[in-house]
Structures are given as C-alpha cells and as structure tokens.
C-alpha cells in the first residue's frame, strides 16, 4: 500500500465512526419510502374493489 493510500485509509478509519446511519434517519427513511407508499398502494388496491 503506498503512502498516499495508507494515509487516506488511516484518516477514513478515524472519521467513519462518526458517520453511521442513525436510528432517526433510518426511521424517517422507512416511513417516507416504505410505510407511506405501502399505505398508498393499499388504498389504490382497495379502489380496485
């Protein structure tokens, strides 16, 4: 591994710890892109009779 890559890898190993997908962001993602669309689809499904 050359020096530039080694330096960047070390920096990434330090920095990454502060940047996970946290619970509130995950919850927001689930609500907006999974729960609401599924509810909308069910409404549309009910519309079909």
């Amino acid at each position, binding site marked *: *591994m050359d020096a530039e890559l080694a330096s960047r890898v070390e920096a990434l190993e330090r920095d990454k710890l502060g940047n996970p997908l946290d619970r509130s962001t995950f919850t927001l993602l689930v609500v907006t892109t999974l729960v609401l669309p599924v509810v909308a689809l069910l409404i549309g499904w009910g519309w079909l009779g």
Partner: protein
Amino acid sequence: MSTKLNGSSEGSMPLRRSEQTWGPLAVFGNTASAAIATWCFITGGWVAYYVGAGRGGIAITAGTLIGVFIALLAALPAATRYGVEAVRSTRPQLGVRGAWLTLALVLVILVGWNSVLTIFLSQAGHEALGAMGAPGEVSQGLGTTTIGVIICVAVFALLWRGPDVLRLAGPTIAIAVLILSMIITVVLLVEFGWGHIFDAVALGPLPDDRTNYMIVIELGIAGAVAWWPYVGSLTRHSRSTRGAFGPAVLGLGVMMSLVLVIGLFAALVVPESGGNPTMFMIEVGGPALGLVALAFMVLANVGTTMVGVYACALALKQVPAIDRRMSWRAATALSLLPVIGVVTFFADPFMAHYGTFLAFAGVTLGPVCGMQIVDYYILRRQELDVRGLYDESSTVYRYWRGFNPAGFLAIGVGVAAYVVVLDPVHFVPGPGFTYLSATVPATLASGLTYYAAMKLVPGLLRSSLTGGRPEAELGGRRAASGVPTPAVPVPPGMSSEVTSQ
C-alpha cells in the same frame, strides 16, 4: 495512482473528510438530474397501457419510492461512510475478485443507460428540429448519429474537470428541468383538463385489474432499484449519511415520480405520443413550446448521461491496473467510446432490445441490493474493514481465492426467484406476482440466502471479520458475540453503541 483534479481524487482512493464537500442541495441536484430523463416519459407511456391516471399515479409513485428505499438502503450508508462506489461496495459480499462481477454488471448497465439516453435524445431532437422547420434536411440516421456524437463530446467536456462540475451543474440542471416539467404539465392541463386526463382509460390493459396494478408497481420498483449503480458515485461526496438520505429520496424518488406521472398523463390523452410530450408541445404551441420541450430533453438527458459517465469512469478506476495506468480524463473518454459506438452503428437494434436491457437491470440489481443490505446491517452492523476495501494485499475479503460463494449463491437464487415470479422479457406474471411484485421477492430471497450461507458455511463470516487473524487480536466484544468491533478506538464522547448501530 489516480489523477488529482481540483483537489479531489478521482479513482480508487478513499475520500478525505475535506473532499466530501457536497451538501444537501448538491446531493438533491445530482440525484434529481440523474433520475429525470426521457426514459421517465417512456416508462410513463408504458404505465398508460395498464392503468388510468388515478391508480397509475399512485402505483408508479409508490413503486418508485419503494425501489428507492431498497437502492438507498443498500448503497448509500456505505458510500457516505466509506466513500465506496458500486463496485468496491460489493467486495465484502462477493470477495475482492468476485467484485469483478459487479464491475461487469455496472459497466454493462451504465453503458446501456448512457446509450439509451443518447439515442433517445438524438432521435427526439432530430424529430423536434425537423418539426420546428430547422433548415438543412438530413437523413434520420445521419442526423441522430451527429446529434449523439455531439452529446457525447459535450458530456466529455463537462466532465473534463471531474466531479466539482457535478456539484454545480447538478442543482442547476435539476431546477431548470423542474421548471420545464411544470410548464409541460400546465400545457397538458390547459389543453385537456383534469377531467379528461382522469377519465381517460388505459390503452391496452390485461384482463385482470390487480395484475395491471402490480405490473405498474413493479415498473416503479425495478426502475428505482436500477439506480443502485449510481447511488454510491452520487453520494460519496456527501458530508454526512444523515444529510444525504432526504435529498436523495427527493431527487431519485419524488422528482422521478413527478416526470413519470407527466409521461402517464401525456400518453393517456395523446396515445400516439407514447408518453413523450415533445411533438405534442410543438403541435400545440409551435416553436416556442417546442423549444421548451427540446430544452427539457437536452438538459434532462445530458444531466443523466453526465452522471452515468462519471459513475462508469469511477467504476473503471476501481480496477487497480486501470487506475494506475489511466488518467481520470482517459477513463471518462473510455466510458463514452462504447456509447458512441452504439449510437453510430447499433442504435436501431439496441433500441429494439430496450425491454430486454431493462429486464436485465431489474433482474440482477434487486438481488444485489438484498445481499448487500443483509451483509451491511445484520452481519457487519455497519462496520466494514477499511483496509479490506482498499488494500489489495488485505486478506479480509479474500474468502475462497478472492470469491465469496455465499454472494454468488445469493444472487443466483434472487435472479431465479425473479424469473419464477415474472417473465422479465415478456412481462408474463407467474405465481405470487399479483401480491408480491417481482423485485421484492427477488431481493428478499437473495438476502435470506446470503444470510443462511454466511452463517452455515464454515469460516466465511469469521474470515471476513478477522481476515484470518486470531479473534483474540481483534478485541473482546467481537470475539465474544460475533459482532464486528471498530478497528480503531472510539473517539471521546461517542459511545460504542452509537458506532455499532
């Protein structure tokens, strides 16, 4: 070694924090400019064959958002946290050599999308210019080829200086395209009215309403999952994971749905348009509205092609031999050459098999996402081995001679599940399609298979957590519970629970 451009490293190198400069506007702008292109009109036109405006609008929007959920969950957190694009992000699941499969997949899909966009734009542009009475009569073939090559040269020129251009160009294109979309929508509504649009019946539905409905949902899901190769390239420059999700949902999900619905409306009230309102705009408003439609097409398709070529060049640079020998600009040019070849020599046969190409993307990417989600969140708890990702000499993700059999098995099972539930070429539904769609079961089947294989095949998971080193060297928590432990000390003020969420 990668070429440095304006301080950013475009190649196999991980980004430094100082190089992750994209805020929410840049992420939104680039995801939106990537998502919106002529294909939205074409897909909207397909939707009109199966359902009307009301149910179609719901189904395509909801399906797109569900697909965005799958693609973002799989690709975004690893991209923002570790700076990985699509190819490198699959090293933990497929192995350091197995990720070549992803490289092949990504290159085929990106070159395919870029070719589709360029051909769409060149053909529609040639027709629109002709309809508006542009001087200089040229044959269709020569005209579209010339426009296609001009588009490729323009994209190359725009990417000359690397992704810094995207940071500025993405939002500009997105806002312009949004305004032009609004104009097209207003023209449609003024010309036909809500009543006419919502009373219009589907153009060629199948006998069963629920099957029609689910086909549209599947079009939305598969179309959005097809963004997986783009997500890493688009979000790795984001300052944070949290700050990238909302703008990406708005850009890839909401903006794309908006244009899909415009295509649906246009196809319902002007069936011969196939969802593309360009010619209709020229007929209604003459050259002035024709120019609006033409401007929309140029901005939308060039913006998407630019992002696609950037992602393609970045994928190429993940191959160490290419990264060492080829500059960023050369990789960009290499990404465009196949597109020019397709536009010049194979435009008609390629477009004749457009549906097969779409099916290929849909069938393969759902399983890749399923495998990646299980690996990143359940097996590794959001902790990847940085050296395993970037250091070619690392043994962490080497598995069996560089290949992880669990990943290949999972993708195989996922593809099989998709094909059982839906014939992807002719769109003939199989058992369970009406209730499950096809991409969702394929994603689930792949994820479950991957989990089972990683747990059941001796040594696979353990070796990819330890790189073959004794666990005692790696810290007590992982050794005791099987949960990956951060390879570096936890900074003050940050609990280990947060880091392993």
